[in-house]
Every structure is written in C-alpha cells, then in structure tokens.
C-alpha cells in the first residue's frame, strides 16, 4: 500500500490544484479542517470553489485571502456570533459566485455521485426562489405519477478535506461526534485528505463507536495535526474557541483587517507557531473538554 502519511504541506501541494472544488467537512463552528485551510492560503491556491453542508471560518478565510471564486453552502455563518464577515462583503461586492444550495441539494448532489445518477429528485424547493437563481435545478413531473418535483444535479467534489479525531495509516477515519455529510464527501470526491488529532491502529478504529466512517479506499493523505480544527471544535478533545472567533470577526470588519489577521495567524512558519500565536497552552487548556 502506498504511504499515505505526509505533512500538511505535502498533502496540499499534491492534492489541491487551482480551480478545484473543495469539499470541507464539519459544520460551522464544529470540526472544520482549519489547519489545512491555512495551508491552502499559504500556498496561494487560486480560483477554488468550496462546497460545505454548513460553512464557517474555513470558507470565510479562503474568501478573505482571495483563494475562492465560488461558494456552495446551504448556510454559512458564525452562529450566534454573527455573519461570516468576508463572505458577506465579497458576495455584496459580487466578487464570488454563489451557488444557492440547501441541505437537500448538497446531500442529494453527493448521493447522486455514488448512485451514478445524473440527478436526484426532491419534493421540496417548489415555489421557492432557489429555482430562479439555480438554472441547473429544474422542475419536472414524476414519470410514474405526474407529481411536480424538482431535479437536483450531482456535485462532483475534486478534493474532500476532512478533520477527524482519529485516523489510521491506511486512511480509515473515525469521527466520534456528529458525522454530518463528511462520509459522503469523502466517498464521492476524486481525492480525499484526512487531517487528524491522533494516528491510531486499525484495531482501534474497529473498536471505536462508528468505526471507520471515512473509508481507507477513498483516502489519499493522512496528516496528523493536533488542534488542527482550532478555533472550531474537535469532539471529544476540545470545543470551539469563542474568544478567538470574536477576535476573528473583529479583525474582519474590513478587508484590510483580514489581511492583518492573515499576517498574524495564517502566514506562520508552522502549526506550532500558530498555536503559540493564538495563546499557547493557556488557550488550549481553556477549550479542552
């Protein structure tokens, strides 16, 4: 078996290309692959798209850094802390293309890939304006009953990037908290990068609740990055860093402000340096569960 364990730098260099549609796992503040996202920004990747069930700081940072030209989420925000600042600004200025998605259009778009289907039907979206801004989603009549339905197209992700608490060297990833659509992202993407808190034995994966929801056959790179989801959470190790989230939003009140944030927290020499910058052991102890 090819060696899948590598550094974050190698993984992003090898598997993320300009123009790719990236599938980022997790949900808003929870288990987002932020370390991988910062590396993408450091490598100055361009014209990327992001698809995320519920987007958060990853997509927002990529927008701020100018790496994205399109976004596909059903929701993107900072939960009770506010709107995603770079996203709000860039969309307002028409700088990125929005594919207006919903929970079902993403879930079905991924399912269509592994069912090898050119569409999946939905009894939803009817009479909403989603249909006015998505010309690739169409109303049609059920071939059996004539009922009005909506056809959702497949979503082919180029690279899935998923942060998990545990992975083995073969690429099996175990998620201890909620999985959301991360398994479907990994299973349907052309390439998959897994970042993890710990690398464990395959036997461990087999014994964990949920086993290997991210299957080895679909994983190209396994990267160990402890606290690699900060400032979002990684259950069961740590929760999200509310203070850093607020600091991020504060910085991002202007485009220049994000540039300062980028200089301070993203353009660092190493993940260790990042962890020092965000407050070191004191901050880490604060978020430990």
């Amino acid at each position, binding site marked *: 078996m090819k060696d899948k364990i590598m550094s974050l730098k190698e993984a992003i260099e090898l598997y993320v290309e300009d123009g790719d549609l990236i599938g980022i796992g997790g*949900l*808003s*503040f*929870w288990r987002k692959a932020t370390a991988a996202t910062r590396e993408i920004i450091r490598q100055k990747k361009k014209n990327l798209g992001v698809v995320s*069930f*519920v987007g958060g700081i990853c997509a927002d940072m990529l927008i701020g850094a100018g790496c994205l030209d399109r976004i596909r*989420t*059903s*929701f*993107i*925000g900072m*939960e*009770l*802390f506010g*709107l995603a600042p770079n*996203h*709000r600004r860039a*969309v*307002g200025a*028409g700088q990125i293309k*929005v594919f*207006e*998605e*919903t*929970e*079902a*259009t*993403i*879930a*079905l778009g991924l399912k269509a890939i592994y069912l090898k289907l050119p569409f999946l039907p*939905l*009894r*939803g*979206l*009817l*009479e*909403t*304006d*989603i249909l006015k*801004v998505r010309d690739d989603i169409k109303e049609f009549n059920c071939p059996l009953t004539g*009922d*009005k*339905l909506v056809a959702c197209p497949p979503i082919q992700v180029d690279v899935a990037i998923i942060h998990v608490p545990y992975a083995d060297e073969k690429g099996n990833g175990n998620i*201890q*908290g*909620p*999985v*959301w*659509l991360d398994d479907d992202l990994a299973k349907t993407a052309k390439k998959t990068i897994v970042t993890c808190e710990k690398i464990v034995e395959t036997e461990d994966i087999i014994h964990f*609740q*949920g086993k290997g929801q991210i299957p080895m056959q679909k994983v190209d790179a396994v990267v160990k990055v402890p606290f690699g989801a900060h400032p979002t959470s990684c*259950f*069961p190790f740590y*929760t*999200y860093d*509310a*203070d850093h989230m607020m600091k991020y939003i504060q910085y991002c009140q202007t485009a220049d402000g994000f540039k300062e944030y980028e200089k301070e927290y993203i353009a660092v020499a190493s993940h260790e340096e990042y962890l020092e910058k965000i407050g070191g052991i004191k901050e880490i102890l*604060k*978020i430990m*569960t």
Partner: protein
Amino acid sequence: MVDYTTDELLTILMARQVTNKDVMIVGVATPIVWSAFTLAKVTHAPDAIFHYLMGNTFVWEARQVSLLWLELGAASRCHRLHNTGECTLELLPHDILTTIEFFRPAQIDQFGNTNNTVIGDWHKPKVRLPGAAGIPDFSGLYSAGQHLYVPRHDKRTFVPAEKLFFRSGVGFVDGTRPLTDYGLIGRGPKFVITNLAYLDFDPKEHRMRIKTVHPGVTVEKVQENTGFELLKAPDLKETKPPTETEVRILREKVDPLGIRKLEVLTGKERAELLEEIIRKEYSRVDRMPPRL
C-alpha cells in the same frame, strides 16, 4: 401575576406547542428553540425526543442548554440513542411521527412565505444572510404545519409579499390556491409566535391573522409593527401568560445562563451577556451540561 421577560414568554409559548409524541428537531444557533423543547420535555412532554442536527442523532434525555459544550450534550457517545444515517434526509418531516421544527425568518409576508437568504436583490445583495439551510427543502412538507417564531416583531421582518426579497421558505404562496395545486404536500404555516402576539392563518384566505395578543400588548400595536394588514381571528383574545412553574423551570433548570436571551438582545447588552456566558462556561469544573 408572575414576572417574566420577553425571551421567557417566547420560549414558554413555543414549549406549549410541543406534544408528548413529537420528535423535536434542534438546529444550531437557536437557543430559544432548544430551550423551548427542553422545557417541554421536562414539563408536559416527557416522551418527546430530541433530534439534534448537531449530533445527527436522536436523544432521549434532556440536558441544560449550553453555548460552548453543545457537542457534549448532543453528540456524546453516552447520550445519543441512535445515529441517524443520513444527514438532512432523515430530518424530513414524517407523517407518522409529528416531527416539529421552529424556523426563524428574517422576513415573512402575509401568506407565511419567508426569506432567510438575502436583504436586497439576490444578484447584488445589500446584506448577504447566512442562507436558508433546509427551509427551502422542508417548508412545504410539514404535515403538522410549519412552526415559526420572530423574537422582534417589526416592519423589517413582517413585510408585504412584494417586499419579500427572496422566497426561501414557502408558505401559502400567493394564498389563492390550495397548496396541492403547487405540488406542496404539507399543511402550510401553522403559527408565528412573536414577542407581541400569537399569529395564525385564516383557513380560507390563507392570510396571517392575530389569534392572541400577549398581556399588555394591544391589537393596534401588533398591527403598527406589521408591514401588511393582519386579519383578526373571530375568537381573538389575550395570550395565556407564563405560569410561575414554567418561568422557574426555564430560569433555574433549563437555561440558567440565559443563552436564549442572545436571540432577543442587541448591541452592548447582548455583547456583555455573551462574554458572561463564555466565561461561565469555560470555567465549568463539572464539564458536562447537567442532565435534567
């Protein structure tokens, strides 16, 4: 009469809508909804089940509402009962179970159509909102009717149909035809609970009407804060106020940190409360939001 705040009134009125057979879908960043479901569970609906989006899971037990330790309450191995297989698809409202969910619209019109997508033109938005998540998928499907709430009842939120910037949630469409004509199989919006009133929809005209006004609120005040003409239910009366027990359980057990208030407060007051909640939760020594 028992003393209560707006957030408490809202939460309690929403809790009363829960029945003992419900599956209660808890989204993210909606602490009023979570508090309402939890209050219902520990008072009149002990058999109701939580379905946490934040956990992809059914949960039987109730825990205290939390801002920072949400995964511990909702996703913990020792707490969740069932791993739902497919995110979103299993959340689809079911006919056999009376699945319920509360949506909070950024805009709503007289027919109950809602917008959570954008303020201004979609192509050149004044404010791009986070997005409507699953509302466009599910809003037309609820056989128990759509449940809506609005913590700040004003003309920015309650707008006439022609001023709804984007229809991301479907209500009674233009009110002229039965929903089945549009291919919709749900019952349409059931009610909107606000800080001023309990609104429902006229069964014939499919237009919003005042069903009850909250204690101390006049019908005129509700109308003044609404951007379209409200109908009035023939039996229009005053909302039954929170009981002492409801208020006490909500304050002391369900949400003692007042996280629900983050949906109601604004500005400096909100920022201070947020800071206070964060400091309190990070300094917990008992780790897990307590079981109720």
